């Protein structure tokens, strides 16, 4: 096993509010994004399938929950990302991308418009755990001084995902069933203030619940008492999001990748495309017009052997022309699947390509994503 001999600085792995709870429930703990987190409980396959058919409880407290407030907040945030925040209705959530000057992706995130107060506009944002401190440094550099930012380190974040998540949660928190996909609202449970949005990263219906750290263990216990709910680890979270075609930052997304390359064009809102004014707009809009050099595709891999991150994409001459950024065995598909960046000419669904991993060549077919249909509960328009 490798250790940390080659690192100059030893950073102590941190614990999250549910650390003891995970261990008590048989979670196998690993280091992830600087925290001890459960990779699995009863087993990745069983947890994955349980989430698809019932409801899985995920601890995602490592992610950065940030609130912003101040006059001029909306245009200040819009200057850093391509979302239409001005057009975002109260308590509605949106997926967006923090971009660098060249249009490369610094992080992907969710933001929600909160009611304004006497200090001005308010936004709640959730960013990736491994990038949260870099994100904050970047945003502090770019936000006007009179806008304040608060990293909610005293709050935990849970995700309850799956077709029966609503049945379980509504018993504890009446009214959550009225939310639709990407809508959020405040609730209370046993005196604890909850902020709940109908969203998640598994492709299933479900909720993300922000709760003060002191209440999270009792709330997790109450959720686990519901017959639909089992605890789920990071392993199944990864296989679920992969099947749902959702990119993972640090793997499928990075500063080398633009939103167009990542096939996240939906995050480039119409008003923003017309007005520009977000980082890398010129490059990104040109790529959108003319096509990127390389783009993210889904792959169905032949045979049973998983092809994982780091495998290369070969052209007809055997030259490396792309790379696999995520891959593994897909429990609900029953076969290995992957995401890769390939040249535009190879990106059409149905294109057969070759992958190389540890000296072995695997055949694969480009396919449209998601691999497993999304089952979000959307409101009537």
């Amino acid at each position, binding site marked *: 096993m490798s250790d940390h001999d080659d690192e100059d600085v030893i950073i102590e792995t941190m614990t999250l509010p549910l650390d003891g709870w995970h261990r008590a429930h048989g979670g196998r703990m690993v280091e992830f994004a600087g925290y001890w987190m459960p990779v699995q409980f009863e*087993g*990745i*396959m069983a947890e994955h399938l349980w989430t698809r058919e019932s409801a899985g409880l995920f601890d995602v407290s490592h992610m950065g929950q940030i609130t912003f407030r101040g006059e001029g907040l909306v245009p200040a945030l819009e200057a850093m990302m391509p979302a239409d925040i001005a057009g975002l209705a109260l308590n509605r959530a949106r997926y967006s991308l923090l971009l660098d000057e060249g249009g490369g992706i610094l992080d992907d995130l969710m933001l929600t418009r909160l009611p304004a107060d006497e200090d001005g506009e308010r936004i709640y944002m959730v960013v990736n755990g491994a990038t949260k401190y870099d994100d904050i440094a970047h945003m502090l550099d770019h936000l006007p001084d009179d806008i304040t930012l608060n990293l909610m380190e005293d709050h935990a974040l849970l995700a309850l995902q799956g077709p029966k998540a609503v049945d379980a949660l509504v018993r504890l928190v009446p009214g959550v069933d009225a939310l639709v996909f990407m809508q959020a609202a405040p609730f209370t449970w046993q005196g604890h203030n909850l902020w709940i949005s109908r969203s998640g990263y598994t492709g299933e219906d479900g909720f993300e619940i922000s709760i003060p750290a002191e209440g999270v263990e009792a709330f997790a216990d109450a959720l686990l008492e519901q017959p639909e709910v089992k605890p789920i680890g990071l*392993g199944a979270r990864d*296989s679920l999001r992969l099947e749902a075609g959702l990119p993972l930052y640090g793997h499928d997304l990075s500063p080398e990748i633009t939103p167009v390359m990542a096939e996240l064009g939906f995050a480039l809102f119409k008003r923003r495309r017309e007005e520009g004014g977000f980082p890398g707009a010129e490059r990104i809009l040109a790529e959108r017009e003319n096509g990127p050099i390389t783009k993210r595709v889904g792959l169905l891999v032949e045979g049973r*052997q*998983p092809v994982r991150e780091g495998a290369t994409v070969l052209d007809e001459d055997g030259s490396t022309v792309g790379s696999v950024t995520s891959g593994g*065995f897909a429990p609900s598909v029953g076969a*290995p699947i992957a995401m890769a960046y390939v040249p535009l000419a190879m990106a059409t669904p149905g294109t057969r390509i070759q992958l190389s991993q*540890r000296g072995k060549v695997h055949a694969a077919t480009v396919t449209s994503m998601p691999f497993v249909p999304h089952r979000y509960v959307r409101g009537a328009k």
Partner: protein
Amino acid sequence: MSRYFTEDHEWIDVDGDVGTVGISDYAQGQLGDIVFVDVPEAGKSLAKGDEAAVVESVKAASDVYSPVSGSVIEGNAALADEPGLVNTDPEGEGWFFKLTLSDASQLDGLMDETAYQAFVAKL
């Protein structure tokens, strides 16, 4: 028939000069759900410690090393269609390959069942 274990969690049953190799129950538990196994073909010559097979769980790929030197007689064809046998019966139906031992004295460096259980208990 005697069973020996390695520190890399392979086991080998020896009957005459024929050995049957697999991974231990502890190893399958650590790997989790096995989704693919690549076993060596008959005739392949292996030295002790060579990468002999690949086992992949949902999470990761791992190498399986040959506990002794020898020539492969047979890979377990059943694992191609049913890799989960390694989870359900790791020290039985989930065997990986059989080989003819070229140097039986190499077994002396391996652990017996009792020593292996003591080894695992300290991990």
